[in-house]
């Protein structure tokens, strides 16, 4: 049968246009909105209501702001805590050590290795040549060792030092109190500044959590969508596969893999991704199963809309509500997983800034409570903020919350 001729033959039988007398006579002045489609950045009423609900949850709203501020600040960690100056003007030339690694030959030395700006020798050289230096507020990076400490590592936060500590430092050949560099939260057991490590550790935790959440959500939603929409055998096989997959003991597999591969940021991400994507599948699948029998999905099918478009345009927005509600919680659990692995020593490679490692140092050095307390409060704050945000998001998307 010739399909192509059909629309034409149908057209022939349809009266084109409307008889003149039936046309609505009151033509509004000017083309009605034909040119200007009011579509800019504007919330739909539904989203506006959600935003209002979100804002109404004061705790969640302020948590979001606080979290965003902390996150954005930590993104610029290099500008807050760094062992290189941000900017040097010297000898008529400008240097940006924060971006570029300069050899020390630039600053009057002759070794040719990367310049160590904290070296007193180089400092004196710059001072003698009237160089302009701009430093970050904290002159340590996450891996900078404080080589002039007031005591053996881990050393106390500088502002906590008392006369006895100063006496001790003077008698035992440590740096004298008056000449110390400030360690706001002390140093860890390898002499690295805790605050600097905290800032970098926060950043890596949040980024890890964010990437893990986004990638695993994308995979999970796609898998759930396909299962829910097509149902039948696809669904059945996929579900059984997921059941088997989730029964694999995650931690042991992680131990085995990390003994074969060096567990860097992306390797860890990959390994955790193998298991975290299943979390959303059930949810999205249920939403799609429910949604595919809605009348407007039937209507779209009757219009001849393809499966792909139906899934993306009609069903996915429905599933997104349930998904979005879960995201902050998934993110907090991702952060927690990374912290736990670091704490156990199976996480990021040694030397990298991580909150889990800080916690495990706190456990090993009970005499230095600033380590454990700092780690504890940071993790607690971060997770609480995420949970508060999550609760507010959940409230905001709650369709029953019309009266409140």
């Amino acid at each position, binding site marked *: 049968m010739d399909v192509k001729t059909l629309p034409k033959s149908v057209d022939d039988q349809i009266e084109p246009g409307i008889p003149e007398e039936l046309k609505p006579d009151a033509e509004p002045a000017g083309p009605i909105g034909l040119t200007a489609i009011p579509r800019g950045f504007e919330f*739909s009423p539904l989203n506006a209501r959600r935003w209002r609900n979100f804002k109404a949850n004061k705790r969640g709203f302020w948590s979001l702001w606080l979290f965003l501020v902390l996150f954005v600040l930590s993104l610029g960690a290099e500008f807050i805590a760094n062992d290189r100056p941000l900017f040097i003007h010297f000898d008529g030339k400008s240097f940006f050590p924060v971006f570029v690694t300069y050899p020390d030959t630039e600053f009057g030395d002759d070794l040719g290795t990367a310049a160590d700006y904290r070296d007193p020798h180089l400092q004196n050289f710059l001072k003698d040549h009237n160089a302009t230096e701009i430093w970050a507020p904290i002159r340590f990076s996450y891996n900078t060792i404080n080589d002039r400490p007031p005591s053996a590592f881990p050393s106390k936060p500088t502002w906590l030092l008392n006369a006895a500590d100063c006496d001790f430092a003077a008698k035992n050949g440590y740096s004298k109190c008056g000449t110390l560099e400030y360690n706001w939260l002390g140093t860890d057991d390898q002499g690295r500044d805790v605050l600097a490590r905290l800032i970098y550790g926060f950043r890596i935790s949040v980024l890890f959590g964010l990437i893990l959440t986004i990638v695993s959500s994308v995979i999970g939603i796609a898998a759930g969508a396909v299962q829910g929409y097509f149902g039948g055998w696809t669904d059945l096989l996929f579900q059984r596969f997921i059941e088997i997959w989730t029964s694999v003991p995650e931690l042991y597999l992680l131990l085995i893999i990390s003994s074969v591969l060096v567990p860097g940021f992306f390797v860890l991400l990959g390994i955790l991704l193998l298991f975290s994507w299943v979390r959303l599948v059930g949810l999205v699948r249920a939403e799609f199963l429910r949604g595919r029998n809605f009348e407007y999905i039937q209507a779209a099918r009757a219009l001849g809309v393809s*499966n792909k478009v139906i899934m993306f345009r009609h069903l996915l927005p429905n599933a997104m509500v349930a998904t979005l509600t879960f995201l902050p919680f998934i993110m907090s659990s991702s952060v927690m997983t990374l912290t736990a692995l670091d704490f156990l020593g199976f996480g990021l490679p040694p030397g990298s800034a991580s909150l889990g490692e800080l916690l495990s140092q706190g456990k090993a050095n009970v005499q230095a409570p600033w380590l454990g307390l700092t780690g504890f409060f940071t993790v607690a704050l971060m997770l609480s903020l995420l949970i508060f945000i999550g609760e507010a998001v959940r409230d905001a998307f709650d369709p029953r919350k019309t009266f409140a």
Partner: protein
Amino acid sequence: MSELCLSVRDLSIAFRSGGRETLAVDRISFDITKGECMALVGESGSGKSVTALSILKLLPYPAAHHPSGSILFEGKDLLKLNEKQIRAVRGDEISIVFQEPMTSLNPLHTIEKQIGEILLLHRGLTGAAARARTLEVLTQVGIPDPETRLKSYPHQLSGGQRQRVMIAMALANEPDLLIADEPTTALDVTVQAQIIALLKDLQARLNMSLLFITHDLGIVRKIAQRVAVMKDGKIVEKGTVEKVFSAPQHPYTQALLNAEPRPDPAPPQPNAPMVLETKDLKVWFPITRGFMRKVVGYVKACDGLTVTLRQGETLGVVGESGSGKSTLGRAILRLISSEGPIAYMGNELQGLKFKEMRPYRRSMQIVFQDPYGSLSPRMSVADIIKEGLRVHHPDMTERERDERVIQSLRDVGLNPEMRFRFPHEFSGGQRQRIAIARAVVLEPSFIVLDEPTSALDMLIQAQMVDLLRDLQKRHNLTYLFISHDLRVVAAMASRLLVMKHGQVVEAGDAAELFRNPKTDYTRALFAAAFKLETAPEGVIAQ
């Protein structure tokens, strides 16, 4: 008349939402005397259900509150009772029957347990005494073979039987007042007639008062002695049924009484080109049993249907629920798989793949029953209507599509300026117009109308019928009109197909069939729909 049972004085109900107050009911007053049936009539959103719920304090307090008024029942003000005191009233002195029998029974408990619970709560009856009382009320409401039914779960009962069980639950403690909140709206016409007859009979026998909430004036005339008409939260007219029906004072009441759709069906077109022809169409759903999923039988939703439709005609398809009407519509559009040839404009559709079907989808459209469910809540009206254009006219510019959208919105009588809004901003009738606009924007020649008026208020139904007929005349459309509402079908259909259990019972010219139905089944359907009369046993399915 005799003693007062319930007296509502100056009752207002307001809802707080997002800092705003919405007044749902505005200072209404009415009385119900003992043994009387009072009907509360109005369109959806008029506040009639809220009024009923407030009598038993079932509203979502504290979001809902009463700025004024009192509800006096046996000398006490129900609104002033605390939670514990009102619980003693609920289900004992005043009980309520809801609209949806599917969801108002707990699916996990047997009938016996659910009725027994109320007896235990208010009378402390257990064991044999409770069972005896349960059997008594089940017999009262006409459940056949009540002893075996005690152990049944709600899903094992039909819709009508479930509603009977609901009524039995409400009657268990011999209430003084029964509130029936649209108890028949979700039921078939035939079952509706039975339930009405039952309620009327029970009310007379038990001498209880009945507050009957409905939007259907036919029912009011059948059951009530007095009626109050509500509109926008106010009672606009009240009085005895005879007075209000014979001499309505308020314009709204007059409009309601005249809301019957005007019969003006499209004439049969025996010589017009054939649009659709099915032969022996079958939709059988297999029933499988056991581990190997062996097919032990079939649910025959459509069993050998031969349908012909000529251009410009409206074929009305009527029957009880479960008779396969909607399945037929969906099978023709190939939304569900079927067997047997379906010829559309002489082209065979059966066996076409999804992509091959697409060119036909443009000229075959469907409008669904539920205007709330058939529009995607996350798309603007313009996007909803444009969707089909995007599929079938991919080369059209956005501007041309917009023009078509505007044209189709005008066609269905909506202001095109509204096209950037979202479905939830529209009323049920407007939404149904949008759904029709989505269908007509593709300039189809054949539309399946699957109960397009069932979810709408009476006044809107009449408008919808006018709109559909108008569109049909202008565009020479062919309709397959599926409905259980025979009044609407009578106003629209040129030919009629009466279905029962997936088969055609009777077919032919609509006017002739309405005048002179040949089978008992058809006669029973008509009697139930037009006169609310019950049929003798065995004629209808339930």
